[in-house]
């Protein structure tokens, strides 16, 4: 059975109080009674001795003042049963072989009292004797006092002790209860508050009324909770900041890598290369970029590139095309990865058309301002590639395979502001897009391959 703090304190105090109460109830009255009886016995003995002395003086010196005074004092005592002068005589047998001591009552007060000279004390009377020896007479004074008053006094002591014991017990119980409550209440409040803090509620606060150790504990608890709350707020704030930073990092990473590759890299620490059976690769390049760049201001050159490539980025994003990289003025992207899909050829074609359209618009705009603008060549090919990341520093998502080379060759073989596509792509899109056969053109490593110009969607016509 588990006892609460309040119960423990109450039981402890009650134990002490109970012991004290029992002491008052039993031991103290017993001691007092014994003291009372002892004092009473002594008092009677003293009376008897005084009277005996008075008798002795009266008989030996014929001075009765002492015995008169002593007897007057004794006779006036309401507790007196009787006072007797017992004469003791030595009685010899007729043959004087042995003797006995005989006691006879010489005189008693009150006179009517029937006195047994051999009487002993009992519960009702205390008999005390004091001998005296004179030449005239030997004897003893026997005093008998009633125990009524003593018994009455004893009962009064017991009643008073019982009342006092009860009062002490009640007072002790009250004090114990108050003490237990005063101690346990704040402790229980602390316990409840601590439990809630443990559950995450850092708004807990305990009221401190006392200035003792428990009050100090409460103050320390409140400070602890406040500090915890502050720390948690700081952690939360920091977490938010870190989350934002992570988000930025993720965004930056996603800027570099495809989502799936970035997730794989974050999860496993590496990204495995993957082979894609059918991917459409787009290459773009600005016509005479090198020559024109020499004539342009460096800042403007970068701005132009940024403007164009930003446009390309927005376009390919619409079509879920993955940007691979830019190499100088070349822009490479691929549709159908990292998540394989069936629409990649069409996505690439649509993106290429939009890129060309965007560039043409920009060119018109710039020429209207009297400024030069780039023409773009676009090449697209569909085929298998291997995609992945290589290196440990400044790594990048890249694709490898003949498809990439072919797409690049198609771009370089294209005309300004034209989209040059391969046979494989043509075969896929020919039903929906208008293409023009250009003929066969040599491609390094592949010999001569047919190339087509993508004009637009057949519905555009």
């Amino acid at each position, binding site marked *: 059975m588990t006892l609460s703090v309040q119960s423990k304190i109450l039981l402890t105090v009650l134990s002490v109080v109970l012991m004290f109460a029992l002491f008052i109830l039993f031991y103290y009255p017993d001691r007092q009674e014994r003291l009372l009886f002892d004092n009473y016995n002594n008092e009677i003995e003293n009376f008897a001795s005084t009277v005996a002395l008075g008798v002795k003086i*009266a008989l030996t010196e014929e001075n*009765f003042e002492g015995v*008169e005074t002593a*007897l007057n004092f004794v006779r006036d005592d309401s507790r007196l049963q009787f006072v007797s002068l017992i004469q003791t005589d030595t009685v010899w047998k007729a043959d004087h072989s042995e003797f006995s001591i005989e006691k006879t009552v010489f005189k008693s*007060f009150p006179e009517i009292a029937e006195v047994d000279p051999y009487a002993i004390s009992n519960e009702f009377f205390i008999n005390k004797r004091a001998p005296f020896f004179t030449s*005239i007479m030997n004897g003893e004074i026997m005093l008998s006092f009633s125990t009524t008053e003593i018994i009455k006094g004893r009962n009064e002591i017991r009643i008073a002790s019982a009342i006092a014991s009860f009062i002490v017990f009640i007072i002790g119980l009250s004090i114990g209860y108050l003490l237990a409550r005063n101690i346990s209440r704040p402790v229980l409040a602390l316990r409840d508050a601590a439990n809630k803090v443990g559950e995450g509620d850092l708004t807990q606060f305990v009221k401190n009324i006392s200035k003792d150790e428990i009050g100090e504990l409460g103050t320390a608890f409140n400070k602890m909770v406040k500090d915890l709350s502050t720390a948690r707020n700081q952690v939360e704030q920091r977490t938010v900041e870190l989350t934002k930073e992570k988000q930025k990092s993720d965004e930056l990473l996603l800027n570099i890598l495809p989502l799936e590759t970035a997730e794989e890299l974050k999860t496993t620490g590496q990204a495995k290369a993957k082979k894609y059976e059918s991917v459409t690769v787009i290459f773009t390049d600005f016509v005479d970029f090198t020559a024109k760049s020499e004539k342009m201001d460096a800042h403007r050159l970068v701005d132009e590139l940024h403007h164009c490539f930003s446009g390309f980025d927005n376009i390919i994003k619409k079509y879920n095309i993955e940007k691979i990289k830019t190499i100088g003025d070349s822009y490479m992207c691929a549709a159908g990865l990292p998540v394989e899909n069936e629409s990649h050829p069409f996505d690439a074609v649509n993106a290429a058309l939009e890129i060309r359209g965007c560039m043409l618009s920009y060119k018109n705009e710039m020429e209207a301002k009297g400024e030069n603008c780039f023409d773009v060549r676009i090449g697209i090919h569909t085929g298998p590639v291997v995609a992945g990341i290589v290196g440990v520093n400044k790594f990048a998502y890249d694709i490898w395979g003949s498809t990439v080379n072919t797409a690049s060759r198609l771009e370089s073989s294209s005309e300004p502001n034209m989209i040059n596509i391969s046979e494989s792509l043509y075969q896929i899109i020919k039903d929906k897009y208008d293409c023009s056969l250009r003929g066969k053109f040599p491609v390094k490593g592949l010999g001569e391959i047919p190339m087509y110009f993508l004009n637009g969607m057949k519905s555009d016509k």
Partner: protein
Amino acid sequence: MKLVFINLALVLSLFMNSFEDSFINTQETELTIVGNVKSVPTDMDLEQLKSVLKGERLRWDDGSKVVIALMKTDTPIGLTTSKRLFNMTGNQVNKHFLALVFQGKVKAPTFFDSADELEAFVAHTPGAIGVLRKVNDAQLNTILVVKSKSDQD
């Protein structure tokens, strides 16, 4: 205060006829009862006197207490007093008064070693009566005691 002297010699002489000669000592026969002038009556017969001295009478006619003054029983006067007035030995007289005192019946007599002290005590204590040797002092008044019946016969 003046003492009232009661010539006991006269009283005792009347008794001489009733006692054997062996009891009579020339010196012992001469006793004088003295009493304080206040309360103590001037005339008492022998029986009354014995009664008073034995403590049987506690108060005088005027209500005052009887105070007995005696010479100690080991003195000649005391001895004679014990024999003639109490008809007891000295020890018996002490026991007699002890018994009375024990029961609170009488105030115990005051015993004196010297007649002068007794005389002075009686003179200054109202209600006091004592027994002394015959006083031949002419300056002191003596009062004749009432004769007994035998004397009157």
